């Protein structure tokens, strides 16, 4: 069960199934893009209006996406036996803790970035940067011990304050101030 979650979190799939996932991704993107064009208003007399080109391109992406899925189906049919052998061999390999960390780190890093951006307006650039760095540095170093977090916290304060002073006061850029004023 744990292993299944790790696979989902890391978006990991079997190399043989990359075309399936890639093709479906393109299809989903094409559908979203096509739907997004539907509300576009046009006052043009021309045959080609503001939504014509995006709709044509969405349709092409849709067709190409399915072509990749079909290619996957054809390839799978040809090499079914080989894949079964590979899957069975891989299933027996021992799980390395560090590898697990590396697999889920990108997803957790994206979540941290989202949190960072979300917090920026209410608590300001400096504080949100301190929180982000304090969490991101130990995560990337694959070490969540108290000592590493403390070290990351010290670096975070220094880096965030210096960045704020340099860009907000030095270059005059407007950075979110939040409730604390910096």
């Amino acid at each position, binding site marked *: 069960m744990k292993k299944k979650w790790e696979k989902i979190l890391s978006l990991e799939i079997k190399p043989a199934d990359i075309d399936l996932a890639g093709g479906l991704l393109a299809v989903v993107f094409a559908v979203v893009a096509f739907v997004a064009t539907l*509300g576009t208003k046009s006052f043009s007399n021309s045959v080609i209006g503001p939504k014509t080109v995006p709709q044509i391109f969405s349709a092409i992406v849709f067709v190409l*996406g399915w072509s990749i899925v079909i290619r996957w189906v054809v390839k799978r049919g040809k090499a079914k036996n080989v894949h079964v052998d590979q899957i069975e061999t891989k299933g027996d390999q021992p799980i390395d803790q560090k590898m697990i960390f590396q697999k889920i780190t990108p997803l957790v890093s994206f979540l941290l970035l989202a949190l960072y951006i979300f917090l920026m307006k209410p608590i300001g*650039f400096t504080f949100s940067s301190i929180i982000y760095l304090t969490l991101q540095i130990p995560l990337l170093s694959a070490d969540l011990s108290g000592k590493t977090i403390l070290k990351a916290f010290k670096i975070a304060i220094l880096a965030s304050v210096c960045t704020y002073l340099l860009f907000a006061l030095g270059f005059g850029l407007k950075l979110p101030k939040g409730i604390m004023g910096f």
Partner: protein
Amino acid sequence: MFNSIISGFANLDPLSYLLLLAGSVVGLVFGCVPGLSGSIALTLAIPLTFTVTPIQAFATYMGIFVGGCSGGLISAILIGVPGTASSLTTVFDGFPMAQKGQPGKALGTGIFCSFLGSLFGFLALFAIAEPLSRIAIKFGPIELFSLTLFAISLVSVLSGDDLVKGWIVALIGILLGMVGMSVVDGMPRMTLGIGRLNSGISATPAMVGLFVIGSLFSASLADKGYVDTSKIMDYKIHGLGFTKQEAKQQAPNFLRSALIGLGIGILPGIGGVTSNLVAYTVAKTTSKHPELFGTGYIGGIVAPETANNASIGGAMIPFLALGIPGDGFTALLLGGLTLHGFIAGPMLFNENADFVYAIFACLLLGAIITVLIEYLGLPLLVKSLKIPKHILMPIIMVMIMVGCISVNNRIFECWIMLFFGIISYVFRKYKYSITPIVLGFMLGPDLEVDLRRGLMISKNNVWVFFQKPISCAFIILTIVSTIFLLRQNKRNERKLREHAAKAGRNVENVDDD
């Protein structure tokens, strides 16, 4: 030509020189450290150079461009890990030469060839770009549509191993570029009801998301696995690093590699990475001693380092003359150009000649500054290899946030960056190349505008694109090159599979991003 360059130097003020120096240093450090790249340095620099003049900003960018492309050889030779992908094959002979106790010779040869390669590319740029822009200025929307279509088709095919996936990502890039106000009608579209998207997606956060975020996290993780700076030996360079006889022997190899680098650099979407690989392969196959390649042979350093730097000038030719980026870096430069109020394309030479000549001067001076820093400041560059990336990358991320906020003084741009970062990560995961998205995003809106204007002129006659000779030639080129490169890809894929079967292992796709 020389008068233009001299007038370019006249347009540089003291701050431009200072920023060029700073850009070269930053470019070298980012090029030198595996996982970082000149593109990352540029995405950081673009938003931070809002307040300076366009010439000062481009002095910084040009320094980063030349430095970033040259720095990769240092880690390739000293620790066996290329600083940037454009120094991939330098490892094959540079590292063994260093291991044999000649790191100074390997570095000296690489640095000098990078410098000469850059000069070769720049001379070609100075000679070709302006006449080409004079021809391109006569193009109307019909010809421009076909030309842009040709450029996007080349990128789709050349930047990956899968033609269909290449086209998918290029079209997705075009679709993303169309979000916001339609240029022809002034109607908002594809905004999903988000009012802040009415003005379109800002190029800088989008580029940062596509190019930087995924690479930052993967570089930090990879760092833990294989970068070992304890292997570095005494790397003092004596003289230029090589003998006169060796220089004489390698002259044909240099010239051939420079031409390869220049030619590949001109083609849209591919640059240093491909030129580096092709030049090394050609040097090996045409050499009288192919068995020496891979053992620490000087020819194996001359070829890739000359080619990757010659491709800088090559990539700048379509960028400055036609407004079509030659590689990922110039795609980012296109964003920088727009931010400073310029329109890329043939009119740039006509309306802002002083600015273009200043860019020429910066490139030339950037190459000289870079070679001097490499020869004199090598110990400092080697020290930069020891920076722990799990600390450096998040700090870079914080600076990127500053850059994104400063684009429009709003946090919304950070969300755009995150969205594009996720797109980049997911698409890379499923073996899509990122370069076509970038090129599609940058060129897509122009493609649509030219198509619609062309149809307006011809009163909705689609055949007009085939009736105009230049336009027809580009469409034929698009079809022929797609078919030719598709067959070439299939042949290469078959060869790779055969090699993999012989070696008894899977072959990973090499991505140009």
